[in-house]
């Protein structure tokens, strides 16, 4: 355990936390059980936000969602550390971008980008600390002919995996770069994504 100060998770987990005893906001119309047919593109952040840098993927996609205009055809999702639960989420998508912490000999904060067949291969060699679910989900998608046509992975080497809601300073500094890489990946797929115009320079926070 580190002696790191507590972060009020509400800032970071704004979309989920309850505020002042009110139930959290009902889901937007668009969130009610919509299928992959409605939104063929998925940006999936993976990891456990309770274990510091392990949750980097989730923090990165939330930053992307907050700082870029996300087209209606794109769903941004916090996949947590789910396994087979993600089958339904991933099935039938045309394009999927996964952001995840990876295990590597490179220094913390290093970024690895992979596309196509290299992605499931990476998960099969089990570099990601929690791919246990994902490798099987990707294999299962292949079995049912529902693999995404285009798959890419943005992987980051974590520094601190202790029990904490906060990213290590090194990883926190990489988050804007990761959000930009997600946008770049989508642009490369032919899906135009532009940053939200900033006013006053305050960092954007996730929608609450």
């Amino acid at each position, binding site marked *: *355990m580190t002696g790191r100060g*507590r972060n009020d*998770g*509400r800032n970071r*987990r704004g*979309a*989920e*936390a*309850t505020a002042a*005893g*009110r*139930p*959290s*906001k*009902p*889901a*937007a*119309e668009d*969130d*009610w*059980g919509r299928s992959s047919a409605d939104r063929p593109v998925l940006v999936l952040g993976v990891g*456990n*936000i*309770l*274990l510091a840098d*392990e949750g980097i993927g989730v923090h990165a996609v939330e930053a992307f969602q907050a700082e870029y205009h996300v087209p209606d055809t794109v769903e941004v*999702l*916090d*996949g*947590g*550390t*789910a*396994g*087979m*639960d*993600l*089958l*339904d*989420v991933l*099935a039938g998508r045309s394009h999927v971008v996964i952001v995840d912490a990876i295990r590597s000999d490179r220094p913390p904060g290093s970024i690895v980008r992979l596309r196509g067949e290299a992605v499931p291969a990476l998960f099969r*060699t*089990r570099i990601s*600390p*929690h791919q*246990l*679910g994902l490798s*099987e989900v990707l*294999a*299962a998608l*292949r*079995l*049912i002919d529902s693999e995404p046509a285009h798959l890419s992975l943005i992987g980051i080497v974590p520094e601190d*995996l*202790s*029990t*904490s*809601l906060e990213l290590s300073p090194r990883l926190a500094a990489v988050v804007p770069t990761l959000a930009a890489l997600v946008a770049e990946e989508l642009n490369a797929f032919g899906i135009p994504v532009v940053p939200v115009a900033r006013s006053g320079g305050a960092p954007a926070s996730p929608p609450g």
Partner: protein
Amino acid sequence: MRITVDPVTRIEGHLRIDCEVEDGAVSDAWSSGQMWRGIELILKGRDPRDAWVFAQRICGVCTTVHAIVSVRAIENALDLEVPLNAQYIRNLIIGAHSVHDHIVHFYQLSALDWVDIVSALQADPREAARLAQSLSDWHRNSEHEFAQVQGRLQAFVDSGQLGVFGSGYWGHPAMKLPPEVNLMAVVHYMQALDYQRRANNIVAILGSKTPHIQNLAVGGVANPINPDSQSTLTLERLSRVKATIDELGDFVTKVYLVDVAAIGALYADWTQYGAGVTNYLSVPDMPLDTRGSEFALPGGYITGGDPATLKPITSYHDAYFEDGVKESVKHAWYTGDQGALHPYQGVTNPGYDGFNDDGKYSWVKAPTFYGERAQVGPLANVLAMVAAGHEPTTRYLNQALGIAGQVAGAEIPLAALHSTIGRHAARAVRCAVLYETMSDQWTRLMNNIASGDYTTFNRPMFPRGEIRGVGFHEAPRGVLSHWAVIRNGRLANYQAVVPSTWNAGPRDDNDALGPYEASLVGNPIADPTKPLEVIRTVHSFDPCLACAIHMVDTDQQEIVRVKAL
């Protein structure tokens, strides 16, 4: 001879099993959780209303169940009633989650312990389809579909991409199913991928998102009900939920239950192994009133494997459950060994000192119920429900035993359930019961809305001073409880006693073996370098250690590593 299997699980969490093998059978066993994570520490000092948001991150597989139990614990501390609509909506969510989980467990996570994929390639699809049709009138048991799946499987094998099938013990002497039965199971494995998705879709519709539901609140749910508004829980969405429940019901009763009974009958020898601890603990679930004093599904405690001993747990405020639970750290890597502690007093001070057979060897604590070890999970729940006279459970159990008897050509007694194969059978029975219960919950929700009740939330108010509460849930892997101590509106202590702690725990204060350990003793081992038998018994519990252990692994081996010394 000593064998070590590490890790055992195909899903998150690291479980290590050590067995001493003498004369071809297990003579002693150790179950060890290999990770420590102080998740509970993150909750201390927080607003109890937000606890569920963090609690659902404890495990990636069981997000929903931790969220539900967390709000129940806080509501219990406040003595807060939950509106009927909220109860029904929660019940539908946990029901759908459990059905999803049970289907995934049998087909995706454990069937390959029993089913030889490679052998399925030798099957005659026509014979296989005929066999399937003789057991069930499922509409997707056609020769055409069987031949198609076999073709796909052959293409997979030919391309060298066995993928999910890559790690099985194909051709192991303990694999005994005829090729046609193997093919039938593989066809249903593929279909199960589709139906487990449908189950999850119910969670997505009602919980507004998966894998992390968004609709909970201490005091109810955040689903506004207004039949006239498009942005709320509309009749159209509710009809979709019902149609999906019906589709799931077909799969569970005509495929899953039938497969488990038939495969179980062909492995009848496995009804002799794996009983282990036969004190069974389960809790009632699916509350039917606002206070949690009436439930659709009974639960309670059975001792010595005798259903007649059932002592029911009757309400969220039943002291019988609340007072009975303690956790021992005598054999777990924690300091402060002052005897077993009640969860409200629970402390979690890590003190790793290496793997010691007679000392400490696990990160998992050892829970007891009134000083005794207890097995939890669908088997515990099914035995309690049958003992309580729950009609749907008795009916589906008789159906499963009937099919098994038909395939085995001999009557299968109830006592066969105390076994490795029995845990699979009970899970399938419970899954069918859950489907039926979901259907009933849906009807109740519709009737309640039709009566004009649109309430979904009661506001929680926190007093000064200290209050305590326990929330429990009969989760897919068994009894899950969260224990909260709240001081002046903030969490002062928070402990989760999860199902896999009950089952995977190490020896306790009295050095009594935990359920995994006890269930392994006596298991035959045909080939110590391929201990399929050990994996069968442990998998039958549906192990998931992500939440049972209180850090992430350092450098675990990436594939199942077996060490035979």
